């Protein structure tokens, strides 16, 4: 059973739809006991990091998340709040990943737009999460903030500057892009997570 954490940060539909397509068993929950007992945990998220952190705190889930031993995957803002801090709302986050989240700087000459929205390629893939995915594969991004490069980066992408497109540490994983919207490549990545 995969627990999708419901902490009121927007659309959980696309994540549950893709798990359904992949034939995975899942539940949508904010119950700490259910989350602790799940085989895997998914932390989705859209919106701003500060409000996502606040909502997680209100549900008393911060400590629960940090102590999980099963594979955990954060998506987009879900991953950002697993980092040390975010410039968005200048907020301290869970500190699972040893990096900070910064805002992109727009630059017309280089074609850097903020938000970074659309399909971009991921490079330097190094994780079983990317089994069957080639370097330079395209995935779908929608964000204005991104984690700085760090040792825990398992994929990188470039929007003006290079940033960590995916992170991993022990049982924790995170993707800045949306695998649930990234076509067949995204489904492969989610399938790999399910099979971990």
């Amino acid at each position, binding site marked *: 059973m995969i627990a999708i954490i419901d902490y009121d940060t927007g659309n959980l539909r696309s994540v549950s739809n893709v798990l359904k397509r992949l034939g995975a068993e899942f539940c949508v929950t904010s119950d700490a006991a259910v989350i602790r007992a799940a085989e895997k945990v998914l932390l989705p998220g859209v919106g701003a990091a500060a409000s996502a952190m606040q909502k997680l705190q209100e549900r008393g889930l911060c400590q629960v998340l940090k102590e999980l031993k099963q594979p955990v995957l954060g998506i987009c803002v879900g991953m950002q709040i697993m980092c040390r801090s975010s410039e968005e709302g200048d907020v301290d986050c869970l500190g699972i990943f040893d990096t900070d989240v910064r805002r992109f700087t*727009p630059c017309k000459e280089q074609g850097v737009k903020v*938000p970074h929205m*659309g399909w971009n390629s991921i490079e330097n893939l190094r994780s079983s999460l990317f089994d069957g995915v080639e370097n330079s594969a395209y995935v779908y991004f929608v964000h204005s903030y991104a984690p700085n490069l760090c040792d825990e980066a398992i994929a990188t992408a470039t929007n003006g500057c290079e940033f960590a497109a995916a992170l991993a540490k022990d049982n924790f994983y995170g993707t800045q892009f949306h695998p649930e*919207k990234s076509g067949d490549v995204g489904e492969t990545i989610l399938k790999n997570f399910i099979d971990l």
Partner: protein
Amino acid sequence: MVAKRIIPCLDVKEGRTVKGVNFVELKDVGDAVEMGKMYAMQGADELVYLDISATVEGRNTFTSLVERIAENINIPFTVGGGISTIDDAARLLGVGADKISINSAAVRNPALIDEIASKYGSQFVVLAIDAKKVGDKWLITTHGGRQLTERELFAWAHEGQERGAGEILLTSMDHDGVRSGYPCDLFARLCNELSIPVIASGGAGSVKDIVDVLSKGCADAALAASIFHYGDITIGDLKKELSRNGIKVRL
């Protein structure tokens, strides 16, 4: 840098896709979910579904269709047509739409853009603009091009961006459905002035038209309907040709 996007547009009436040449003669070209899946398989980067039903029943059919689309499609999709309140937007978000596009309702009530963007984020709001050249000015039309307003295109696009729209979807009503190419100068100027992405719509008749609007026209994405629906060209072949022309696309 992100890849340029190719976006097939599907007009939907009573759950079926139709495409009108110049919005008048509608021809039934297939099941909306199956067509979307086919386009996604061919390499479409996003899909746009426009509800052109005129009845309440049609609207309800569309909502359940959006739910089925979300269950079956693994790329982002936008829905539009008849969205005039934040409740309409919330209903479509709730059944799984990634973005909504608003058009006439935003012209009538520009605060709608702020309202939806501040609640659900700019990434959720596409401002669709139908423009028509009158003298030497580009003016906004509403109701599928039937009503001309006094709003000027560039001022309105800027206002939309300031109010929180995440993208502009611009159609030239002078070019829509006639398949003779996009007005590239118009798109180049708009893309240069705005900081949010611009999607070019209406006018694609050939691969070269799409090459032009994504290079000379600087557009971030091209949206087209007939050229794909009638099988003139597949999305895969189109993207290969774009790539040969030095345009970054997802292959």
